[in-house]
């Protein structure tokens, strides 16, 4: 258990290329914090700085209240799962898991005990003598996890650990990681560019863009109250519809604050309206269905409206045919409002 604090941290590569500038971040003790953002946003750099693999250019890094800027990676009581697992190819599964324990001078008996226990937990018991090359992707992932878990660290760092797995296995591993976090009650810091992973596993989401924190909150809050246009469009699938106020003004029957510049709404909140109905206090527009994607429980449509393409989603079985005409209505309370700087307008 431990809390990680980054104070005014700056990271510059080659004296020119500043990736992160004056970043402040607090990762709560025992949280499952997911750093999420598009590639190049600096999320992996932050993780590697926490691990001690990248030195800070300026600022302070604290783990459990202690400044660790100069503390070596091996002495920080952390474990990391790499994107490509970084298993030692020349060692067996057992060798891989045991390596850190031997370096920490854990007695042999204790080592054997821990390895047996962990391997039963992650289901590797029968593969202990194999080399990583003889394992499947999912099994390698488990070895990487076991190697991290066996050290009993205070902090788990994970750098896109699921990105090399197929979709089915990824889903399964997600729930296993949630389980694991609950059991170990350690602090998890997880990096991904996949907002689904972030939303499904995190207790805290830190959304980054170009080295700047856009929003740090619970997944629920990030989804319900996106702090700005970037967050609004990054989180949620399909992405939020976003239009300029002046374009949609003729179709608007709701009163909005003066400073609202952009209006956004989730695809699931654009509801088809029956003929003749006149919803009040809303945005109501008609258009032609362009495409239809059947996702199973839901159907995603793209609609050509007078002010642009609207994505909307229905959960009923009744399909709308392409080229058919539909009227959509978005209730005032389902709208997300942003000012001219792209910041959320609180009401």
């Amino acid at each position, binding site marked *: 258990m431990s809390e990680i604090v980054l104070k005014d941290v700056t990271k510059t590569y080659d004296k020119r290329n500043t990736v992160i500038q004056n970043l402040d971040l607090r990762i709560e003790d025992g949280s499952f914090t997911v750093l999420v953002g598009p590639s190049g946003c600096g999320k992996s750099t932050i993780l590697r700085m926490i*691990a*001690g*693999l990248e030195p800070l250019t300026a600022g302070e890094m604290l783990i459990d209240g202690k400044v660790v800027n100069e503390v*070596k*990676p*091996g*002495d920080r009581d*952390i*474990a*990391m799962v*790499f994107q*490509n697992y*970084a*298993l*030692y*190819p*020349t*060692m067996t599964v057992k060798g891989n898991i045991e*390596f*850190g324990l031997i*370096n*920490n001078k854990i007695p042999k008996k204790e080592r054997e005990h821990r390895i047996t226990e962990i391997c039963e937990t992650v289901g590797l018991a029968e593969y202990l003598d194999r080399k990583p*090359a003889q394992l499947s992707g999912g099994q390698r992932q488990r070895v990487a996890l076991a*190697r991290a878990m066996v*050290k009993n660290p205070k902090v788990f760092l994970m750098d896109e650990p699921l990105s090399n797995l197929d979709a089915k296995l990824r889903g399964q591993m997600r729930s296993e990681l949630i389980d694991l976090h609950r059991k170990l009650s350690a602090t998890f810091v997880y990096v991904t560019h996949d907002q689904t992973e972030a939303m499904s596993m995190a207790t805290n989401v830190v959304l980054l863009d170009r080295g700047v924190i856009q929003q740090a909150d619970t997944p629920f809050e990030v989804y319900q109250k996106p702090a700005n246009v970037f967050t609004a469009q990054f989180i949620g699938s399909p992405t939020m519809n976003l239009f300029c106020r002046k374009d949609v003004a003729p179709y608007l029957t709701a009163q909005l604050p003066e400073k609202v510049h952009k209006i956004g709404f989730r695809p699931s909140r654009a509801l088809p309206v029956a003929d003749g109905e006149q919803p009040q206090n809303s945005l109501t527009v008609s258009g032609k269905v362009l495409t239809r994607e059947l996702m199973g429980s839901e159907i995603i449509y793209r609609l050509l409206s007078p002010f642009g393409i609207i994505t909307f989603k229905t959960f009923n079985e009744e399909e709308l045919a392409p080229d058919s005409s539909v009227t959509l209505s978005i209730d005032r309370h389902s709208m997300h409002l942003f000012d001219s700087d792209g910041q959320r307008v609180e009401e």
Partner: protein
Amino acid sequence: MKKKFLSIGKPYLLIAPAMAAFLLFSIYPVMSMVQLSLFDWNMISPEKDFIGLANYQKLFYDEDFRQTLLNTAVFTVFSVLGDIGLGLLIALYLKKNTLVNRIMQSVIFAPYIISLASISLLWMWLMNPDYGLLNAALEALHIPGINWLGSPQYAMLSVILICVWKSVGYDAMILLAALQSVPENLYEAAALDRASWWRKLTKVTLPMISPTLFFLTIVETIASFNVFETIQILTRGGPQNSTDTIVFSLYQYGFKFYRIGYASTIGVVLMIIMTLFTIVYFVLLSKRVHYQ
């Protein structure tokens, strides 16, 4: 019928030139060497006397040949160790890709591409007991000069030194390429696993480059066992046979004393030793070599 013959025969037809060259320049000489080792012949007379295994018997009791074997073994062990050991140290040092290191790479590699004759002449000058640079340096430190190539104690050491100096750049370059192909995140994982510098070297680096080390060991062993030109130019096997190696004595018997049968016998023995070496290496080392 004709078509079928073409489709089967085509691959053989295509490799025929290479096979012909191989048979003519590798297999045929080996066969005739084995054959010649059973004869007593001086290369000039039209008659060859068949003497069975007498050459082998003689070689077995030949004191000089035993000395030659020992010299070759000493030369091989120290030059292989020197080349690979020193090469590895240089490669580890040059691993960081900086401008200075890139220049250093070419500097260290340079001796390898200079002709052996030039290098030997250069070192003969450096090691000259009267006006050589090495002895001048020793004298400046008030250490008595050494007769580098002219005394039985130091001649072998000097030859090994020169050979290592020439070829260490090649080993360093190959090892450097191997080191650079080790993924960086293995070292990061090892750092998080709290591995010391020594543990990283022995448990991560060396196993990862073991195929290269294995390759170099075999290639360098064969090359050292066959050392000839350096000896021929620097010492001619002297003083007092202290640098006489197998191939050099083979050359002397064959082309100076015109005892082709005996020289062929040495050649056959050399071939057998090399084969045994390679087999032993494969059996002993293959377990410790990790191929990806």
